[in-house]
């Protein structure tokens, strides 16, 4: 079997910032003592004069980013998802969301694939939290290619954006020549008529693997990548529900309030069909190697396959 190229989207984030920094003088990066982990250190190395470390003070980090943005700079404020969306939720809401400032939040170490650090650092709630803020764009890229495209698109749009990245190296799946990234537009990666698996982030790869296993069982699964959780691609989701009739959502996030919640909200009002939400089932995570945790929580290809089979039966 040929070697699959793997890279963590946090690496992509750091690389994309360093790339974009070359073109745009007004791009500045802030971190909260995690530059080595969030990979903003890559930008810091290239542009030390445009990097500000706020230290371990995430509430202030968000406020400083807000203030910088009002002076015409485009700040990327970076820390772990737990602290960006959790600790600093109210700062993001009131100092960035309410005034609709041009701040980009780069949140890394999302989900249980944080691994060994365990539940305190495994944020499975950030999408739910950020979704409730009016005007917040939320992007959860599935691989290196998409993550880099998302960072660029976030810079280019006006307004607050929450970018969600992972710690674990994940396969590159969007390396086709015709790949195009557009905020708010889902991508159908595989056509199918028996069930539609709508996935986001690293679970898009799990969904593709599950579709292959399902194919062997004679199940024709459609796979849709929803990289933008908000604004969500309602049209693509409704179309899938109408054409396929059975929907499965997959995410490395709580089944409450994330992609599954968002898809159900769209479908219950527009095209009610049975939906199975696969994600973290309203529990806290735990320590362990990331890959093993994904297996344990049923978020790897095999786990998704089994849940889909159970749903279809």
């Amino acid at each position, binding site marked *: 079997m040929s070697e699959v190229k793997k890279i963590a989207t946090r690496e992509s984030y750091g690389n994309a910032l360093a790339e974009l920094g070359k073109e745009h003088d007004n791009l500045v990066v802030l971190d909260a003592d995690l530059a080595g982990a969030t990979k903003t250190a890559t930008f810091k190395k290239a542009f030390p004069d445009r990097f500000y470390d706020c230290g371990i003070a995430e*509430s202030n980090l968000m406020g400083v980013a807000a203030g910088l943005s009002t*002076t015409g700079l485009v700040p990327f404020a970076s820390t772990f998802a737990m602290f960006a969306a959790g600790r600093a939720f109210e700062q993001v809401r009131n*100092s960035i969301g309410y005034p609709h400032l041009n701040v980009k939040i780069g949140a890394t170490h999302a989900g249980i694939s944080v691994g060994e650090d365990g539940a305190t650092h495994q944020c499975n709630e950030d999408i739910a939290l950020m979704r409730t803020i009016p005007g917040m764009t939320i992007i959860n890229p599935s691989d290196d290619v998409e993550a880099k495209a998302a960072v660029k698109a976030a810079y280019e749009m006006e307004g607050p954006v929450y970018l969600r990245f992972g710690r674990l190296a994940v396969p590159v799946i969007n390396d086709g020549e015709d790949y195009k990234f557009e905020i708010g537009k889902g991508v159908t990666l595989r056509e199918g008529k028996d069930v539609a698996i709508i996935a986001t982030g690293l679970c898009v790869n799990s969904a593709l693997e599950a579709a292959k296993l399902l194919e062997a069982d004679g199940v024709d699964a459609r796979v849709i990548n929803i990289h933008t959780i908000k604004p969500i691609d309602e049209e693509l989701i409704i179309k899938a529900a109408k054409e396929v009739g059975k929907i499965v959502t997959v995410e490395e996030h709580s089944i409450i309030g994330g992609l599954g919640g968002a898809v159900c909200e769209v479908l219950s009002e527009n095209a009610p069909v049975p939906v199975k939400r696969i994600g973290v089932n309203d529990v806290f995570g735990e320590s362990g190697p990331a890959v093993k945790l994904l297996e344990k929580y049923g978020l790897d290809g095999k786990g998704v396959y089994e849940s889909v089979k159970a749903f279809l039966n």
Partner: protein
Amino acid sequence: MNKLELQKMANEIRKGIIDSVHAAKAGHPGGSLSATEVFTYLYFEEMNIDPKDPKNPDRDRFVLSKGHTAPGLYSTLAHRGYFPVEDLLTLRQIGSHLQGHPCIAHTPGIDMSSGSLGQGISVAVGMALGAKHQKKDFRVYTLLGDGEIQEGQVWEAAMFAAAKNLDNLVVIVDNNGLQIDGNIAEVNSPYPIDKKFEAFNFHVINVEDGNDFDQLDAAFKEARTADKPVAIVMKTVKGKNISFMENQAGWHGKAPNDEEYAIAMEDLKKVEEALCQK
């Protein structure tokens, strides 16, 4: 403006505060009245601003970190010419640009949405950093309540401002001594305020009477000479110049009824008459 003109203007601004809060039947008069002189001084004397060009990228900035005292800021902005004084009577009404707490999107002259205590100072720090980063020479002012500094974020922001040597930042603490639940020393004492900011490596200026323009003038002139961020800790009187509101925690966030309104306006008329005899 000379001192007498500033005093007269402050009295007009106080009338606007009472008018707007009375009309709204809600709002925060106490801390608006304690800070009236500093609002007046900033917008009529200190800051490089132009009401006709409120978004000028090189203007000085003001962040009302204690956002609940929006009536004080609104009345100041109106009298400075950012919008008609009559608008003050629409405070807190549906469709009004004068929200209960300042909103950058709604009101001309508001540099930042604020009101959730502890957050405004961080934004002001970000603005000051933005000036330094772009080698611009605008200055940034932010006003905090003395109760507000109980918020931990204030000290995150202070630590960062000093670490980045933001000598274009002036943090003003309105030390009127009262918060909603009572005396700040009894609720959860933030004293000594000056020593705390000194320990955070600020240039600290104590103002014995923050309702006195001479003392404010001296403080803000000294602030311009500092080579690090400045904290002006000014003692003030909550509810200043309204007989029944002075030093009463109960007037933190309450509107006068019609009878009280009449007394308040009479109080301010007397101040005006006294000023006119000067």
